[in-house]
């Protein structure tokens, strides 16, 4: 069991976490904007998350916290 949580207002929508995730379960939500005006990243299928932290490691802005 694993979980990723995003501090959305720090996200700049760069997409590096989406690129890094080996399970391909992260997306930039094109339907909404955060307070900075970016499309924030989020996980669309937490069940698939293995807590590898590839996403958090690739994130330049320390947006993601990973638990396992």
């Amino acid at each position, binding site marked *: 069991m694993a979980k990723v949580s995003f501090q959305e207002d720090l996200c700049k929508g760069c997409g590096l976490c989406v690129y890094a995730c080996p399970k391909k379960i992260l997306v930039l939500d094109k339907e909404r904007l955060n307070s900075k005006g970016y499309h924030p990243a989020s996980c669309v299928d937490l069940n698939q998350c293995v807590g590898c932290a*590839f996403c958090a490691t690739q994130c330049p802005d320390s947006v993601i*916290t990973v638990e396992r």
Partner: protein
Amino acid sequence: MAIVFQKTKGLTDKPFHYCPGCMHGIIHRLIAEVMEEMDILDKTIGVASVGCTYNNYDYFSCDMVQAAHGRAPAVATGIKRCKPEELVFTYQGDGDLASIGTAEIVHAAARGEKICTFFVNNAVYGMTSGQMAPTTLLGQVTTTSPLGRDAETRGYPINVSEMLSTLTGAVYIERVALFDYKHIQEAKKAIAKAFRVQQAGLGFAMVEFLSTCPTNWGKEPIEALEWCKEKMVPQYPLGVFKGKDLEV
């Protein structure tokens, strides 16, 4: 569930001002994580340089000194000679270190100053909007090489890690990248090794990071990462140039 990854105490609460996808954020975080994990936040003094990271004294949770463009290795020399028990690092871009600061980095390394330099090479000047850097690749388009860098009028890129490794005083030099988890972990190990080299008083240590500048390369962050992997590595091969077998 236990926390496997969270923001390090080595960074302050201030959100980074860097562009989306800029890898300064990753490098800052790695240095901060290493300082926290080695329990050296209390005894480290960092030197901020001039470029996009001019104000990273607001991001690291340790004492910080902001230096004039290119002069960070000289400032670090002054600090370390006065406070030899503290750990001192500089954080510099390719303009700061390889252009205006060439004399200072060469001589700090030649003197074997016991400092760590974290050199971020993204082949362009970021802060001042995209001019050619000493590390710009041949053919690369920048605001001061609009037709692509040509050797005839604009010379050749400088391989800083290779160049400095000819100096006896430079005891550990490694070039790393941040393409994926594996590379990032290697980069983090290099940072930790650089600090251990300083703790052992062996001499000058430098980690060169191949990095991206999405904004001035005119590329999306992922595209920029791919360009870095594909185009920069042939000019700037990854690996240890000095001190591979150092026992620290």
